[in-house]
Each structure stands twice: as C-alpha cells, then as structure tokens.
C-alpha cells in the first residue's frame, strides 16, 4: 500500500485507492470523494478519475463511483464517530485528521440566525494529503534574514491554494527553531523561540497537544486556537521571538499581527492570493502591505509537480506594484474590484 493514503477509507473504496499506480500514489495531493459521482484524485499537479481497478483515466464513465454507505463510513471515521465533537469544524467546512491531512467538506448548510451553523447531508469530501517536505525552506530562508537583528524579517507567504504554503511555513518554522539558517553569515545565530498559532491544526497536526510534524526544538504550539486571540496569548505568555500563523485575512488577524510587530516579535504568515497585485488589492492584506508591515514576500507558483518561489523585499514589492497601471476592472467576469482603487 502506498504510504500516503490515510487510513480513513472503508472498503471497497480503500481497496480501489490501494491499487493506485505507484507514481500517482507517491505524489498524491488530493482524493476527492463525492457521493454517487466519480472518484477523482489530484497528483503531481494533475487530476484524473480512478477506475475500480485503481488505474487512472480521463473518462468519467469508466470511473469508480463511491456510494452512500462508503461516504457515511468516511464521515464517521473523519469525525471519530462523534459529530457532536466537531461542530466547530463542520461550521468552518473542514476537518483536520491525524497526520495533518485536511478534509474539506461539502453538503447542505444549516443556518442559524443567518450564519452557517453547520453542514449536514455531507456528500463531498476533499482529502488533502499533507506531507513534510524537508528542505523546502532552505532555498527561501536566506532571502528572509535580517542581518542587523540576527533574525528573520516580517514575512508573508503568498500563493493560490494548493501550492504548498503550509508545507513551506512548516519547514521554515522548523529551520528557524533549529537554527538551520542555510546562510554562512548566520551560522552562529542559533535557533529562535517560535510560537505557532495553529488555528486549523494543519501546521503541526497536533495529537493531544503534541505536534506530529517536526517543528523544531524551540517551538511552542497553540493548537486549534483562533489566530487573533492566539497571537495575543502567545505574546503574553510564551515570549516568542517569531510568531507563525497560517492564512491570515480577517481584520482582527491584522490587528493582532500589528500588535506582535510592536511587541518586537517577528511575524511569519501565509495568505491566499494569486500574486502581489492581489495582495495589494485585498481589503485587509492591502492595508497591512501599504503600511509596510511586511519586510519580505514569498510568492509560490507551480508548474507541473515543481513548486517555484520568489522572495521579494517589501520596498521592491511596493515599487513593482505602484509602477504598474491599475486595471479599471480586475475580474474577468466584469464585476467591480472588491475595493475601489484610490
């Protein structure tokens, strides 16, 4: 059996996935299970349907179709037989399982006072396989160093979904914590105290509070804690030198990060955005970017199975962005941009 398939699936779905061809099983990124619809996997940047014998196909009609019983069993396994214990996760639409794999859920939303209270009749699952890529930070980290302060600059990692933001963040945390700076001038710095606020339990994949991924020897982790609150708790109680958070985007996250900045803590964050232009046009992110909160940006992009990254210092980013003429209409569907261009 391929080592990457999590033990979530019940027979016969499990049997199908175990027979995946070697190259797909080793590079698998997503397993998409939809009730009474074809089974799909994503691997090495591509997507394919899976036949009942495990081979891959582009033909929808030849694909294996998981049934109601398999989906129900999968949901029970995901929730450890306890829907009542994952109400918060159901409200947000994903569950993180053992090993740090995140499973996105789609079903019917139940509203309470106008807000999504939870999902029911869950029939769509997207199992995103998490893996630790040791060494992916080594190429990025030298570009983020602040030699005067002997630490890292405030950094925002930017990429569209599925490009390895969290993987990079995890490895950066490990390197910073262990003092593996990958730079000759930084050889004697030693590690830094890192505080990780892991709202989605994806960075550390904690089991009972202990991370299952290697996050380095000097890392403290607040598991499943809302970012804004967690950042403040970390600053008050754990005296971190670097704070790492995943997927910022709300105003309260920005406020808490600003607080961290003023407290002299270095910040390492990720955000969903297509590119720098996107960062400068998103409501909350742009506010932070324009105030010059970040000292460096890391842009991830992917071609085929390879992840490429580009480190951009903030001055350069501001220059690059300002010099470009702004399009009147940004979205291809003709809607106005989210924020009027000043």
């Amino acid at each position, binding site marked *: 059996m391929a080592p990457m398939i999590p*033990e979530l699936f*019940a*027979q016969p779905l*499990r049997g199908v996935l175990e027979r995946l061809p070697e190259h797909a099983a080793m590079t698998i990124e997503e397993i998409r299970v939809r009730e009474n619809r074809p089974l799909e996997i994503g691997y090495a940047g591509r997507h394919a349907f899976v036949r009942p014998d495990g081979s891959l196909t582009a033909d929808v009609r030849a694909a294996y179709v998981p049934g109601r019983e398999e989906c*129900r*069993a999968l949901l*029970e396994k995901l*929730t*450890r*037989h*306890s*829907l*009542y*214990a994952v*109400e918060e996760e159901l409200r947000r639409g994903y569950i993180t399982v053992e090993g740090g794999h995140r499973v996105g859920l789609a079903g019917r939303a139940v509203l309470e006072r106008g807000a999504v209270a*939870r999902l029911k009749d869950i029939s769509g699952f997207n199992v995103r396989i998490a893996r630790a890529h040791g060494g992916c930070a080594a190429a990025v980290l030298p570009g983020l160093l602040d030699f005067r302060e002997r630490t890292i600059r405030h950094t925002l990692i930017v990429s569209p979904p599925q490009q390895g933001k969290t993987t990079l963040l995890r490895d950066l945390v490990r390197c910073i914590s262990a003092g593996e700076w990958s730079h000759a001038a930084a050889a004697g710095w030693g590690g830094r105290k890192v505080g990780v606020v892991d709202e989605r339990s994806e960075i550390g994949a904690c089991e009972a509070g202990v991370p299952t991924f290697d996050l380095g020897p000097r890392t403290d982790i607040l598991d499943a804690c809302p970012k804004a609150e967690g950042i403040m708790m970390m600053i008050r109680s754990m005296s971190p030198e670097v704070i790492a958070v995943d997927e910022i985007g709300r105003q309260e996250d920005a406020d808490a990060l600003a607080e961290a900045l003023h407290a002299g803590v270095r910040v390492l964050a990720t955000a969903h955005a297509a590119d720098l232009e996107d960062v400068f046009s998103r409501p909350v992110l742009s506010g932070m970017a324009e105030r010059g909160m970040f000292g460096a940006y890391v842009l991830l992009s992917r071609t085929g199975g390879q992840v490429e990254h580009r480190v951009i210092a903030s001055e350069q980013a501001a220059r690059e962005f300002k010099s470009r003429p702004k399009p009147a209409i940004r979205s291809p569907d003709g809607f106005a941009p989210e924020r009027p261009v000043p």
Partner: protein
Amino acid sequence: MIRLAGALLILLAGTMIGYLQAARFAARPRQIRQLIHALQRLETEIQYGQTPLPEALSRLAGVVPEPVAGLFSRAAGQLDRRDGPSVREAWDQALAGGWSRTAMKAAEREALARLGASLGGSGRDDQLKHVRLAMLQLQAEEAAAREEQQRYEKMSRSLGVLGAALVVVVLL
C-alpha cells in the same frame, strides 16, 4: 445414611438456587443505577469535553464496576479498530456480547439499543436529548426493578429452601 446425605444435598442445592435468584433481583436495580451514572458521565463528556465517542466510552468503563463497564469497554474497543464498524454495529455487538453477564432485562436493553442507534450521529444538543431520554427510561425501569426486588428477593430465598424441603419430604 445415604438417604440423609441425599436429602442434605437437595436442601443445599435448593437453598443455593433460591439465593442466586434473590441475588439477581438485588443486582438488577443496582446495575441500572450504575448505567444511569455512566450515562450522566457521558452527558458531561458530550457537553463539556466534546470527547470523541471511543474515548468517552472507555472513560465510562472506568467509572462503573463490572459487568456494566464491560458493555462500554467492548463498544469502545470495537470503535477503535482500524476498519471498525459503525457506532450502531459496535454498540449492538457490545450489547450482544456482554448483556448476558448482567442481571438486567429486555426493557433496559431496548433503551440502550435505541440510544446506540443515534449516538455520535448528530450535534451536541440532539445527542444530549437522546442520552436524557435513555436515562429517563432507565429510571423508570429502576423503580420497577426496586419494587420487584422488595417483593421477590426474600420470597425467592425462602422458596428455595421450602421447595427443597418439599422435595425431601416427598422423596423420604
């Protein structure tokens, strides 16, 4: 001489049967009470701990004595298996496997089986309702069981002795 020994044996056996029967009458309300305690604990685990079911059930097994604990630990063990069954199947298997070791009757089993069918399958508030319903049913059964105990516990003891004596008299 042999007759006397036989009569003694019959008396002994009759008394034993009577006492065992009486013990069952006494054990039933006690075990139902333990079950109610366990469900109260389950309520707390669901409401405040939001403990996943396998863990919650093995904790329940820790707070009540055997043989009631066996029901919960059996179900928890089933759920923790890698390609484990659904909650309902695990629960039914646990009841089927461990019920005969308890002194409880069909009505209690019915209440528990109904609880098992809904356990884990809904949100917190709904789960609490199911647990409370099961507790109410068990409380009703407990009252009935106590009444039975008062009425039949002593009687079955004396019936054992007297029945044996009757047999002895007839045979002599």
